[in-house]
């Protein structure tokens, strides 16, 4: 039955999975409700993502969970110097996750995870002031991770597995700040590529100094998504320039950065558990987004991201047999450096508040709900490195304010 649920989710793959940014930390509603901690939490099959080694110590022989989140994200932009104001109308997106973990014997566990940790879905008004940087992006990836965990002894386990990634991208922007056809329709380009495949891996280790105290480490490798021979469609190009901007193909490459998590959890008593995680995301691999087109055009978009950290805190309270309540907070540091604040991922540091609960329908079947509110301070920022055809660079910026409301729902099953 779990298989069927999992399978159904994968079949629904003509969704628009991702949203809200580019790293989307929504890999399980139980853990999300606890501030998306989990590298040292032994709650459910969600550990397949959070720490593969955790499978070895799950209380049930079989655990599975399937969930999704609904991202309602907003970006407001304004520029006081010019009196501009625009709001991105981002489509609601629904990242999902599905995990199954099975203890084969007392030292070996196997599992499978499918989740969507990177993606973006942003849509600005047509021909808005920053339309030469982005009008619309849909970026999605699905990670599929077969996993094994080995219990080395009562206090330690290791786990890991290869990750198969399949992703797609669709991106549109105007060619520059003013080029149009004779009717004034702005010249623009849409690039599209689906079925971008790549491989990576996840490794984890869990150490249990006591029955109540867990320490976990998880490392997920960088995965380079190489889009080759995607389609490039140039629209509203003056006929005299159609040679220069001929439709064709494009190549580009986008890194999904490596991520290291260390964390700990402590079972205070039967009811209370607290957890802390520290994430380090190695964003410095994203130094430039370069596109090369079959018509000879090169597009260089410096990004110059820096490695960033996230500090997570979560708490769990078992109210009774039926209800478990969770809450959390995390501070998410932006990888964007000053002067590189591009409107396709206009993220500054954020405060994230989470909450949720589990309702146990019976001893095997449960429903998890979570809610995440992402709060960004308004920020004056700009992207200063947009190359112009004359060899100079132009700057685009103003004041940005984002927020996101993300409810989520899962079902889980264990025996």
């Amino acid at each position, binding site marked *: 039955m779990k298989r069927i649920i999992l399978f159904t989710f994968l079949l629904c793959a003509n969704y628009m999975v991702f949203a809200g940014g580019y790293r989307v930390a929504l890999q399980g509603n139980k853990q999300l409700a606890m501030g998306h901690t989990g590298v040292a939490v032994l709650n459910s099959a969600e550990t397949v993502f959070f720490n593969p080694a955790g499978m070895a110590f799950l209380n049930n022989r079989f655990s599975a969970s399937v969930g999704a989140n609904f991202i309602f994200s907003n970006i*407001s932009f304004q520029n006081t110097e010019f009196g501009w104001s625009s709001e991105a109308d981002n489509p609601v997106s629904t990242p999902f996750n599905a995990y199954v973990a099975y203890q084969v014997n007392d030292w070996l566990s196997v599992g499978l995870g499918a989740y969507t940790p990177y993606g973006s879905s942003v849509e600005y008004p047509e021909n808005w002031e920053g339309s030469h940087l982005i009008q619309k992006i849909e970026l999605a990836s699905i990670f599929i991770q077969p996993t094994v965990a080995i219990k080395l002894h009562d206090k330690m386990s290791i786990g890991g597995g290869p990750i198969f990634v399949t992703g797609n991208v669709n991106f549109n922007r105007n060619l520059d700040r003013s080029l149009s056809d004779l009717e004034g329709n702005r010249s623009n380009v849409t690039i599209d590529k689906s079925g971008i495949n790549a491989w990576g891996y996840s490794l984890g280790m869990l150490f249990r100094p006591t029955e109540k105290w867990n320490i976990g480490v998880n490392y997920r490798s960088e995965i380079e998504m190489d889009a080759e021979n995607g389609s490039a469609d140039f629209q509203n190009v003056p006929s005299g320039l159609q040679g220069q901007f001929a439709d064709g193909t494009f190549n580009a490459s986008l890194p999904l950065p490596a991520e290291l998590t260390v964390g700990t959890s402590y079972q205070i008593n039967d009811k209370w558990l607290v957890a802390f995680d520290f994430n380090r995301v190695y964003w410095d691999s994203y130094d430039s987004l370069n596109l090369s087109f079959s018509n000879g055009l090169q597009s260089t978009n410096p990004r110059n991201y820096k490695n960033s950290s996230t500090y997570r805190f979560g708490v769990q309270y078992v109210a009774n047999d039926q209800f478990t309540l969770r809450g959390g907070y995390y501070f998410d540091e932006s990888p964007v450096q000053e002067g590189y604040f591009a409107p396709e991922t206009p993220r500054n540091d954020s405060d994230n508040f989470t909450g949720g609960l589990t309702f146990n329908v019976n001893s095997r079947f449960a429903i998890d709900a979570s809610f995440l509110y992402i709060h960004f301070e308004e920020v004056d920022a700009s992207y200063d490195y947009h190359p112009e055809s004359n060899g100079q660079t132009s700057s685009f910026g103003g004041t940005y304010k984002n927020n996101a409301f993300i409810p989520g729902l899962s079902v889980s099953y264990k025996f």
Partner: protein
Amino acid sequence: MKRTLYILSSTVLFFACEPEFKNPVDEPGTYTSGDADFSNYVAVGNSLTAGYSDGTVYLQAQKNSYPSIMAKQFSLAGGGNFNQPLVNDNIGGLTLSGQVVSNTRMVLDYSNPASPTPVNLNETPTTNVSDILEGPFNNMGVPGAKIYHLVANGYGNIANFPAAANPYFIRMASNSDASVLEDALEQEPSFFSLWIGNNDILGYATSGGTGTNQTGNLDPQTYGSSDITDPTLFAGIYNSLLEGLTANGAKGAVANLPDITAIPFFTTVPYNAIPMDAATAQQVNQAYAQYNGGLQLAYAGGFISAEELQKRTIQFSAGQNAVVILDETLTDLSALNPEFRNLRQATEEDLILLTTSSVLGTLADPNNPSSVIGVGVPLNDSQVLIDAEVEEVVNAQIAYNTTIAGLADQYNLAYIDTKSKLNQLSNEGIDFNGGIVTNVYASGGGFSLDGVHPTSRGYAILANTFIEAINAKFNANIPVVEPGNYPTVFIK
């Protein structure tokens, strides 16, 4: 479970919450109009005010007329709707009774990418002069209008076309007898801009000085389209325009007149546009030997001064050579010899018209290899604005500008120094975010393909110049616009 649903449904209420700024620019309070009131802005002027570009008026250019750009910014501080007499299309040009009376817009033809060529769009205009639009129009810019046209009744009467009526004003006049000023005043503007007088010198200049300098003649009824308007007449009408426009207490802005030497129509073709090798130069010199010899005799006979002898002596050499022109101000020597012509070679002080570039260096007579225009055949009066004519233009411009500056002061108006701005554009260029705008023809970004009127980017820079002066004068804080977001020349 119910609780879950409750939480979910209550959170749905939050999802529509757009993030709010502390000081939202799209709400009142961020920008203020100061002592001015932009609720009903009316712009009065000529082609520049109408948004004329690339040799005509077309929709895209109208959208980016400087008053339209300003009105959009004014709307952030109480500015109202800004109605323009829009044409039908992006083809440009006008028709009347099935005849094309004004040509289509100019675009760059890239069929040979190595040498993009300005061409008129090969389509038929669909804007008919006799289709009268329903006004009133905040943009009272009338292409071709000179200062005295603004107060001329019947300037919009189709029965007077083409002699004493303007096809653009015919389309927008409230009635056939109305003047431009009357239609502007009828709207009781709370704020106005006035930029007029350019054509009062430009008509003469772009004709190569074929018209008459009417200084001393106060009757515009007797003026031709290529004449220079008398500065006293100019001052009188300018004063009455401002009297009318400020009568109800309206604040406003006036702009002075830029130098013609700032615009590519007069600066693109150099005076020494003739490349030549030594052998050809020798041939040409032999052909002019008789003329030069005649000059020596005329000098020896005391008919011309040594200075004129030197000025008129024609001499070609290897390299770039000055163009041969006719100069009607030279001493007429035809009494000595009926074939003695008023020839000389151009100097830096003479301005060869942009339109001359299409004939310069070509054969006047295809069967006569020595009839190269600018070498064997001189440029005529309508192809070059000679130094003496430039001086007439400059003198009139100085007089007009003195009037405008004085009246701006007298009526307590914002004074927009477009002369300095366009000189900056032509001398060092004007920097903007990501580029620089210059007055280089076609590629400089400031001027459209007609060589006289700005591009949308050029108009954006002008709008900023207006806005800055208005802010300073009236303690307003209207935001400027980003020139880089406005187009330059269009490619076919």
